[in-house]
């Protein structure tokens, strides 16, 4: 066995966004040694991009709210294929997780009586999102970071994991490299928590940064864990569409929460045209009522712009396809119209949506207090991921836990806005707690030196293949072609024949990825890093495509042109992705456990 820099911990956390940091804080507080690995610098993870807020039924603004309503909203938003126990735990524990952030220094916007203010958001019946203007994610990650650095946690910044290490089935560590020098690192641990976020980089138009290559999904898959719900990829309805270089950057749902409206090129508020039956009783049927809702009128129903993300995204696509789009292939999102209805309108918009104002002003030359934005759907979030136990967040592989976006279950077929930040706090904490408990009951495992050497050799192969650098073997080109294919063939509107084509394309790209080459040396070499991420991107792309083919219905984020309706049969099914003994990807169907009578009663009472 070669000489690797080694680190030993009780609990190893991979990822330092909200879920990873919250897990690390909890595990460390339980008295075990904790190491955190992050692909970027500390505090830069995608959590900083979360804008709107943290969903928690604190009932500070509307005392009709409570965990039961939040639970029912989450289940309905997820089209009832969620893990109901996770949705229950999430709704019950989110308020305490938010209050705890305040005790660690977070400063949320306030109500008049000095409590945490909550705002409206899509799919949430009452104002529920604790927020700080439109930079809630930054407040959350910075609070966790600044608290975490005093907890005795060891941070390994700019370090990437390429493989989980196993002793038999059990996960006992991870193998990776540091970006700075390209040195290999071996981490051994009694328990490993994946908190690696999403898969957005598998698509051409995405709100996600370079990091979101499905690392945790792929690491877990190769270690033998089950992935579920992979067909459900959330396309956020409002990403920037112009200029081309900013296409995909997120425009917060908070714009609509503050009264922003969607219009087509004819100036119509097209969201009124098609309101799903199960949301009709709670949705405004005229513009005046919608605006009164945004102003806090408790008797008013919410405007249709605040329907769930899957629905809004599909309506936008319909407008564009039918020729009523904006000049650059989106639709119009207008917040400037509220100026006439609130005192000191322009200042009000800037105060409520400071970073949106800044983003459009600097990147698109648009003043959102004066003119509408052009927006269109952007790949945003993976509902699918590692199947975990609702109580402990342990995966189907012993010693391996997952939390946050890379875990699955809570959101079902569609995530509600604001439920991501609460998800990563609630289940990050649980993962940390239970990983620490697991670590206390077990010992360090054995790592096979031969595996380390083979893993290292695989990782070095792209650099050693330097001679053949051409378009065929260019890692950036392979990544780009994959993104274009997934966007075109497994995007927001899906068709079996196109997805079959995607399977073929992915297989071809996987073949090329085996011959990928990265000129240069091991020191901070983005070509090499991109080459090493390809396997993860290809794995999750294949998983998304196969699961999407298997689910023969339209539900939540999955819209099938060839199966346009929801199916009561498919609604009872979870699609599971697992690595077969021969190394191929296997898709199986499992029957969802029925809702308990208690859960059903809460849903019935709160969705009328």
């Amino acid at each position, binding site marked *: 066995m070669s000489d690797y820099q080694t680190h030993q911990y009780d609990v190893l956390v991979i990822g330092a966004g909200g879920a990873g940091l919250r897990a690390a804080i909890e595990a460390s507080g339980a008295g075990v040694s904790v190491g955190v690995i992050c692909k*970027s*610098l*500390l*505090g*830069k*993870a*995608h959590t*900083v*991009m979360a804008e709107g807020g943290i969903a928690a039924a604190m009932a500070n603004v509307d005392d009709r709210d409570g965990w039961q309503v939040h639970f029912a909203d989450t289940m309905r938003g997820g089209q009832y294929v969620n893990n109901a126990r996770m949705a229950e735990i999430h709704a019950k524990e989110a308020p305490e997780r938010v*209050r705890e952030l*305040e*005790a660690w*220094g977070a*400063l*949320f*916007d306030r109500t*008049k*009586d*000095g*409590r945490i203010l909550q705002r409206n958001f899509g799919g949430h019946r009452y104002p529920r999102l604790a927020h*700080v*203007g439109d930079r809630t994610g*930054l407040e959350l990650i*910075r609070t966790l970071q*600044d*608290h975490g650095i*005093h907890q005795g946690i060891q*941070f390994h*910044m700019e370090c990437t994991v390429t493989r989980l290490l196993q002793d038999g089935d059990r996960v006992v560590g991870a193998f990776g490299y540091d970006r*700075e020098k390209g040195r290999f690192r071996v981490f051994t641990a009694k328990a490993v928590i994946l908190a690696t976020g999403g898969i957005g980089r598998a698509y051409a138009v995405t709100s996600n*940064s*370079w*990091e979101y290559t499905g690392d945790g999904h792929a690491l877990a898959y190769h270690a033998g864990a089950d992935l579920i719900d992979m067909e459900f990829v959330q396309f956020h309805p409002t990403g920037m569409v112009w*200029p*081309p*270089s*900013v296409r995909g*950057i*997120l425009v917060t749902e908070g714009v609509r929460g503050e009264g922003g409206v969607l219009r087509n090129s004819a100036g119509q508020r097209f969201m009124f045209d098609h309101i799903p039956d199960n949301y009709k009783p709670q949705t405004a049927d005229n513009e005046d009522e919608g605006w009164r809702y945004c102003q806090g009128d408790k008797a008013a129903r919410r405007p249709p712009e605040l329907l769930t993300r899957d629905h809004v995204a599909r309506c936008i696509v319909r407008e564009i396809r039918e020729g009523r789009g904006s000049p650059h292939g989106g639709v119009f999102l207008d917040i400037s119209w509220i100026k006439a209805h609130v005192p000191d309108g322009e200042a009000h918009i800037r105060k409520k949506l400071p*970073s949106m104002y*800044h*983003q459009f002003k*600097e*990147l*698109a030359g648009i003043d959102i207090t004066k003119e509408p934005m052009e927006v269109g759907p952007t790949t945003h979030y993976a509902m699918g991921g590692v199947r975990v136990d609702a109580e402990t967040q342990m995966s189907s592989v012993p010693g391996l836990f997952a939390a946050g976006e890379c875990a699955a279950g809570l959101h079902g077929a569609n995530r509600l806005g604001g439920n991501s930040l609460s998800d990563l706090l609630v289940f990050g904490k649980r993962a940390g707690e239970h990983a620490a408990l697991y670590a206390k009951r077990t010992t360090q495992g054995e790592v096979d030196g031969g595996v380390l050497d083979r893993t290292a050799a695989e990782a070095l192969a792209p650099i050693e293949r330097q001679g053949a*650098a051409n378009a065929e073997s*260019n*890692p*950036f080109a392979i990544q*780009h072609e994959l993104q274009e294919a997934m966007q075109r063939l497994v995007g927001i509107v899906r068709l079996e024949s196109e997805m079959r084509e995607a399977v073929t394309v992915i297989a071809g790209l996987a073949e090329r990825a085996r011959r990928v080459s*990265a*000129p*240069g*040396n091991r*020191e*901070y*070499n*983005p*070509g090499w890093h*991109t080459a090493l991420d390809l396997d993860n991107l290809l794995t999750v792309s294949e998983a998304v495509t196969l699961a999407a083919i298997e689910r023969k219905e339209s539900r939540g984020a999955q819209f099938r042109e060839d199966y346009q309706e929801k199916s009561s049969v498919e609604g009872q099914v979870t699609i599971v992705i697992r690595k077969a003994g021969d190394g191929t990807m296997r898709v199986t169907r499992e029957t969802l456990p029925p809702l308990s009578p208690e859960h059903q009663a809460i849903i019935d009472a709160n969705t009328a």
Partner: protein
Amino acid sequence: MARAIFSIWRGDQSGGAMQDYVTEVSEGMVVLDAVHQIQAESAHDLAVRWNCKAGKCGSCSAEVNGKPRLMCMTRLSDLPLDEPVTIEPMQAFPSIRDLVTDVSWNFEVKTKIKKFTPRPPDAADGTWRIAQEDVERVQEFRKCIECFLCQDVCHVLRDHHLHDAFIGPRFLVYTAALEMHPLDVEDRLADLKEAHGVGYCNITKCCTKSCPEHITITDNAIIPLKERVVDRFYDPVRRLLRVFQG
């Protein structure tokens, strides 16, 4: 489509040089797009740090045409493209490679600042009551995305290399956010005066001008901290009192 020349610093701790790259420029492009395009086309190993590409994470700090900028928020249409656009790494930190610098010192400094310590909760349920205006006073400082451009331009760090004696504008803003936090009860003034070297700042306001989040670093954070230190340690009556009290 126009083509433009980008002159990018390539090298590491042992030295380096500017190297020219030509690439297509399209509407709306920012400097980071050009760097990525060059990376994908002709310089696969060109090292650059970035994440969100939306001015929210503070990773892609560099010096563009000699000015401290986030590459993702610097539009090419705002730069003269008839001459090469120069892109260099931040100068106040050691080089790692190309546009990437070693900013780990900043993370070490932060751990030395006494952490947030709240007063006991105001309500029986463990929560606090805070007025919106008290929140807003500190929110300006909490907007900081830790891009470290203010540290890069601060001459105490950049020219005088007093990294051991001065925490720099970023961490004075951080300290101000804690000191002015409506719930915090910790006292950081002695540290500010001694180990953190607030006195080294002579208010040239370079940091304020460089801040992509438009935080009024000098006027709103550093000067109030300096005043608190002066009130505590240099007020003649208090000095006299300290003499008598031993």
